[in-house]
């Protein structure tokens, strides 16, 4: 009985936490449908009718679809490169005993502590020397070498991969790269999925580096575009339109989320090798 009451209390607390997570989005959605005047007058939980007017006002200033497409062009290739090459590197560092692998591992650990923003100035300097300012290349290619992801996946592969499985595959005569692609990658799946989703979000959310590197408004990724809207006085005065811009910027993320969350769950619960 006591367990049951405790259980109910736990559920209530968990649901309350859900409400806290969702309420700001609900407020945003409601405000996006109300006129500026209504928003200034007071808050309401009931949606208004000004969404079309807000959209018309907004689209005369900015093309958010363009920003979304730009973000896709950056985040998707960066995520794929990050997931594949991090898994490959992590596996190589965990399994093969070549000379200097410890040195590389220590360099990785140290560089986890020097992330993009601390070497920002050198990075910007490099990009301007290579004439890569206003280009997507410096936003995509560095994803191949992500120390944090490699570190996590190295720990992960060592805890989920049983050496006996590799030996069995070798005895069967499978090539090393084939072993990696056919056996190791699926086993590392849950870990890779967690990191890839994190990486994708990091990329999609990334603001500072794209803001510094991109100058042409038509090349702005979504976060840079949304942030630049804040500076447009007309839009920040029209609060309904401002909320609508935020709401629109959230839509693709929600769509990806519906697709990804299923993937997170299936891959996380997929499990590893059972003896």
């Amino acid at each position: 009985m006591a367990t049951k009451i405790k259980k109910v209390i736990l559920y209530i607390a968990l649901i309350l936490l859900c409400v806290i997570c969702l309420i700001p989005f609900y407020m945003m959605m409601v405000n996006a449908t109300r006129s500026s005047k209504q928003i200034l007058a007071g808050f309401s939980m009931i949606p208004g009718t000004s969404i079309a007017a807000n959209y018309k006002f907004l689209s005369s200033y900015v093309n958010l679809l363009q920003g979304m497409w730009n973000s896709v062009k950056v985040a998707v290739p960066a995520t794929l490169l990050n997931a594949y090459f991090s898994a490959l590197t992590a596996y190589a560092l965990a399994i093969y005993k070549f000379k200097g692998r410890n040195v590389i591992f220590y360099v990785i650990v140290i560089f986890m502590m020097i992330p993009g923003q601390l070497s920002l100035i050198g990075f910007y300097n490099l990009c301007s020397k290579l004439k890569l300012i206003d280009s997507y290349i410096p936003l995509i290619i560095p994803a191949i070498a992500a120390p944090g992801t490699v570190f996590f996946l190295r720990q992960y592969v060592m805890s989920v991969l049983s050496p006996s499985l590799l030996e069995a595959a070798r005895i069967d005569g499978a090539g090393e790269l084939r072993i990696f692609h056919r056996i190791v990658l699926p086993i590392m799946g849950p870990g890779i999925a967690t990191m890839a989703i994190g990486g994708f979000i990091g990329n999609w959310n990334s603001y500072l580096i794209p803001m510094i590197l991109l100058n042409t408004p038509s090349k702005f990724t979504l976060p840079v575009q949304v942030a630049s809207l804040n500076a447009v006085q007309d839009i920040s005065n029209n609060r309904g339109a401002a909320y609508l811009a935020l709401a629109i910027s959230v839509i693709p993320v929600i769509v990806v989320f519906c697709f990804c969350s299923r993937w997170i769950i299936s891959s996380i619960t997929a499990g590893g090798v059972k003896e």
Partner: protein
Amino acid sequence: MASTTAKKNKLKNKDYVGVIMIIPFVVVFCIFSIYPVLRTLRLSFTNYKGYGDATFNGLDNYIRCLTDKFFWRALWNTIKMWGVNIILQLGLAFLLTIVFSDIKYKIKGLPVFRVIYYLPNLIAVTTVAILFSSLLDRSYGSVNQLLVHSGITKTPIDWLGKTSITPYVVSVIQTWMWFGNSFIMLMASVQGINNDYFEAAAIDGAGRWTVFGKITLPLIKPILLYVSITSLIGGLQLFDLPYLMCGGTVGNPAGSTQTVIMYLYKFGFETWQTGYASAVAYVLFLLVLIVSLIQFKVGGKED
């Protein structure tokens, strides 16, 4: 005995494959990570202004940084905002992991809860920042409208204009954004634990806390270490949220939300004192390095 040696030799012969596998990583790493870091180091000893020639000026930038009270203020602001955030964030994530991995309560609906807790982390920080600065607006923000209307407070609260409140508002928003992420990391590693351990423990009649302390905790420790290190590094780089919510690199009100990266950005990309900003980056890096190494040593020693 002889067969194990043979196996080891067989593995050893394949070790060159490992070298080939890490080549793409190493090449990109050298260009986009190591070079910028070394370049920043070089610039930190010069008076480079973003263009033209750089003149060597020794340790001037470092001395200026370490004696600038505004640098220390920015560092303190950053640590304060991170500290409050990490306690709330990891505490909450850890609590949720305990609840959901509990063998007695068997809480259902993890997929749904996990998805909802994770939602705030999916939204771009820029969107979150602008959303909250609208919602928390002193006179017209929905939060104050709700609070005053429902009688919880008599006068609107100046969420973003009080040095005693605003930094913590930023911390709480950070927690709101990140606790789901930490929770997924911890929970994923709990689920990665071989079920046999739990079954064996159940057969032996081990209690809930014994299982948690003896099986779950030791096995998720590497992930816990990883989450706390990355959070520290992420936290010391705090930029987007206060930059967009608190009036750019100034860090309103009265510089109370100016983080180290905002300070660095101000010199690196607004006033173009590139050399000085590089030195600031290095001072911050050394601090991060020291703290991380301590964390790593402490975390790794107990094994």
